[in-house]
């Protein structure tokens, strides 16, 4: 540090030394509030993403199974149909293609 730095630091520090952090109680209160959230709220926070994932898995599975069930009655699966089945084309679109 240069001498001028010490002088600047000295003036700056005395200019702000009266400032103190006065929100400790508010912070601790907010922390307590966030920690004592109703258990039902927490339950929904955890369960919501699980339900969303389960729903997504069900939709994807039903599309795939639907596609397979449409294609299988033909007997042998043609190469282009295999592509359709594995690419997860929607049930309606697949039905249209088969007809």
């Amino acid at each position: 540090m240069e001498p001028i730095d010490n002088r600047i630091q000295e003036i700056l520090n005395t200019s702000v030394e009266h400032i103190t952090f006065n929100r400790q109680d508010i912070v601790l209160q907010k922390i307590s509030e966030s920690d004592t959230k109703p258990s039902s709220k927490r339950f929904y926070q955890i369960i919501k993403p699980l339900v969303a994932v389960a729903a997504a898995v069900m939709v994807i599975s039903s599309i795939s199974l639907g596609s397979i069930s449409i294609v299988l009655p033909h007997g042998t699966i043609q190469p282009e149909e295999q592509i359709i089945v594995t690419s997860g084309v929607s049930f309606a679109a697949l039905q249209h293609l088969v007809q």
Partner: protein
Amino acid sequence: MERNWHTIETWMKLYGDRLVRALTIMTGNEEEAQDIAQEVFLKAYHTLENFRHKSSPYTYLYVIALNMVRTRKRSHSKKPAAVQLQENEYPSPYPSPESHVIQHEEHTRMMRAVRNLSPKLRTIVSLFYISEIPIQEIGKILGISEGTVKSRLFRARNQLKQFVVQEEHHGTNR
């Protein structure tokens, strides 16, 4: 959770004042600095698991604060201009005696000089002079090279030096 609670309580005692002072220099507004510091400690509590002890707790808090200041600046820039900072925003740290009046004037002028700096230079000033963080670490915090830190510090120092020289000139004339 109990452990985190005590950690934040200790950090507030140890670093709260320094952080809010640095933020006052950075933002030019004590009330805003208090708001940000409050949010910083709350965020630190909820993200304490991310603290890897690679830096000091103060640096960790300062980085959170810096991001908050940037986010606020971005959201404020989309809104109409905020209230202009007033000279008397820094209340006198001294009681009324005359001997302190001159010193108070000096501090008010110093704060004005700091407010005249660009936000980047104010950040450097708050990191170097108030937070007393070494130049190398300042570079890491801000994601800039040591040379850039030195160059910004040089510019800030030059602008504040003019103030100090003027003050000392005033002092000899009094």
